[in-house]
């Protein structure tokens, strides 16, 4: 029999609604799973056992009272630690916020609570979401459940690992340059970056305000759509929130599940298919398989050129550091977080500098200084100003491409999950992980990553992701094409995640290797 922690979010909600399982039983099943597996995986920075059980009990009470329940009522969820949660520690992966208990909820926290989702805890991440491997967390490593010697992607690596390790059927991440899609790809799950402005940023600890966007992770496209529907919508507390309703992504996922893409025009972006960027052979092979399968489903495949995508990496690594240097100025040792070196003699400025030196990690300091440089007088136009113009050109490339296509596709990342420690010494080697995800980030357009098979060219069999990009406010197309691909792939090969090694055996193998190295 399938255990409760193995159910999809949709099936979990159905089981609770039909009284086959209580929300408290479901919460216990996942908390037990976290207890057993998180010593090896390290996905959670904080597990809120008490809060989760209380929220679950409330759902059971409402059900007993005959109150109407939402489509995800009682379903457990893991929350990235960049999202502010009232009364539950929130650090954004940084020492500068160690021990901070937020006095309010982010809008998406409020929305998931109102929808009856049960938050299990807060997940690990690269400090302030700066990174692609979760190794920049100030607290701990998170290990990829496919191979404990590898990273789970980043910056939302705790959220991706939690879902891949069956610790939660759903999680929330944030994506600034690929931080939902790339971790989804390398852990074999689904992750979607919504249209910029579709999901409220109120209560997200800001990294790069013109790029940050929260979105859902799930093990299936439908589950991911169900969570998207809960998160999205206009919020007057966020001035960049789009004041129109978004598309019905759940219906799109259900439509896609029929695996018919007749008449859908899909563009392959020639700049994102391996001419440069060091794409691995196994990634390109799975992408080619994916294209063939989409064609089988009736899609019309064309190649499109988006020449300015080649400048996305450069533009991103100016814009994101510039905005972060401004956003992180709020950590001034006065109103919240760490204060270091306040001996009664030192000035505010000295205390501030000592606090930030002690509270921030190396990548955060690097980006703050890059941003400070790029925004300084005399350089602003050449760097930040020019990068914002490159964004326009990238958006224009997308617009052109969408005149002849409905969606664009590419690999989600040039690489499968890499080994822990392999890329930490060279910042540029880490940055190229985002090569395929950056264009949609800069244009503010939606994109999803769905698993498209395994690659074994880098050692053990590891997941590869297919990215589907759509025009702004057409997130439904990502879900439709993603669900169609998923249905067709699964009927032919079985679900990618079905092939994940047993975590107990993995943990033992890792321990044995460590023993052997001594």
């Amino acid at each position, binding site marked *: 029999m399938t255990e409760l922690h193995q159910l999809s979010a949709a099936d979990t909600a159905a089981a609770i609604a039909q009284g086959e399982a209580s929300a408290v039983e479901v919460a216990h099943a996942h908390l037990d799973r976290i207890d057993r597996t998180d010593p090896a995986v390290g996905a959670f920075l904080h597990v809120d056992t008490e809060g989760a059980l209380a929220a679950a009990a409330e759902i059971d009470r409402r059900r007993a009272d005959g109150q109407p329940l939402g489509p995800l009522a009682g379903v457990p969820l893991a929350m990235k630690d960049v999202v502010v949660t009232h009364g539950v520690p929130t650090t954004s992966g940084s020492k500068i916020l160690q021990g901070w208990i937020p006095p309010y909820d982010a809008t998406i926290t409020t929305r998931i609570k109102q929808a009856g989702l049960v938050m299990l805890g807060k997940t690990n991440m690269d400090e302030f979401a700066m990174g692609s491997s979760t190794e920049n967390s100030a607290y701990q490593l998170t290990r990829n459940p496919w191979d404990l010697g590898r990273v789970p992607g980043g910056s939302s690596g705790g959220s991706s690992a939690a879902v891949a390790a069956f610790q939660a059927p759903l999680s929330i991440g944030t994506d600034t340059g690929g931080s939902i899609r790339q971790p989804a790809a390398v852990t074999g799950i689904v992750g979607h970056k919504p249209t910029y*402005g579709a999901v409220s940023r109120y209560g997200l600890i800001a990294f790069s305000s013109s790029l940050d966007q929260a979105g859902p992770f799930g093990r299936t496209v439908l589950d991911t759509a169900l969570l998207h529907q809960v998160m999205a919508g206009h919020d007057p507390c966020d001035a960049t929130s789009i004041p129109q309703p978004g598309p019905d992504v759940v219906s799109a996922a259900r439509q896609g599940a029929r695996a018919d893409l007749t008449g859908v025009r899909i563009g392959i972006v020639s700049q994102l298919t391996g001419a440069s960027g060091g794409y691995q052979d196994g990634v390109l092979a799975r992408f080619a398989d994916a294209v063939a399968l989409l064609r089988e489903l009736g899609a019309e495949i064309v190649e499109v050129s988006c020449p*300015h995508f080649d400048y996305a990496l*450069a533009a991103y690594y100016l814009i994101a550091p510039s905005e972060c240097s401004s956003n992180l100025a709020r950590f001034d040792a006065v109103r919240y977080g760490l204060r270091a070196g*306040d001996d009664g003699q*030192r*000035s505010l400025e000295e205390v501030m500098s000592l606090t930030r030196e002690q509270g921030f990690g190396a990548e955060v300091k690097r980006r703050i200084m*890059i941003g400070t440089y790029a925004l300084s007088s005399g350089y602003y136009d050449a*760097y930040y100003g020019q990068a914002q113009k490159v964004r326009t050109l990238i958006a224009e490339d997308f617009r052109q491409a969408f005149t002849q296509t409905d969606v664009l596709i590419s690999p989600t990342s040039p690489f499968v999950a890499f080994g822990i420690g392999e890329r930490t010494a060279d910042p540029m080697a880490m940055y190229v992980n985002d090569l395929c995800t950056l264009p949609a980030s800069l244009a503010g357009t939606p994109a999803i990553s769905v698993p498209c098979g395994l690659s074994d060219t880098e050692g053990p069999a590891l997941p590869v992701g297919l990215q589907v990009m759509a025009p702004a*406010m057409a997130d439904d197309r990502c879900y439709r094409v993603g669900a169609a691909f998923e249905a067709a792939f699964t009927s032919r090969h079985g679900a990618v995640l079905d092939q994940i090694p047993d975590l107990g055996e993995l943990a033992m193998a890792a321990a044995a290797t460590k023993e052997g190295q001594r």
Partner: protein
Amino acid sequence: MSDDRPEITRDEVAHLARLARLAVTDAELDLFAGQLEVILGSVARVSEVAAADIRPTSHAVPLENVYRVDEVRPSLPREAILAVAPAVEDDRFRVPQILGEEE
């Protein structure tokens, strides 16, 4: 223009760190000088694109700046905010001295 690589010296890093209020160590000055030079050299590529008459983008959907309705709403309770502050005195944030002795 790609040969227009910025040279980042230790002194330049020290200056940036001062502007950004980071009390970096000597070891960090050496590490960051090399890394910042590589990163800035690489991102300087944006200048290769001719974009004189291109407008900048910061949002996927053009938005108009609007004022929200001027409604009185309760703010967070003072105790809740001060409870998470690093230092508090007389119901306020306690701040280290702002002016040095010599001023």
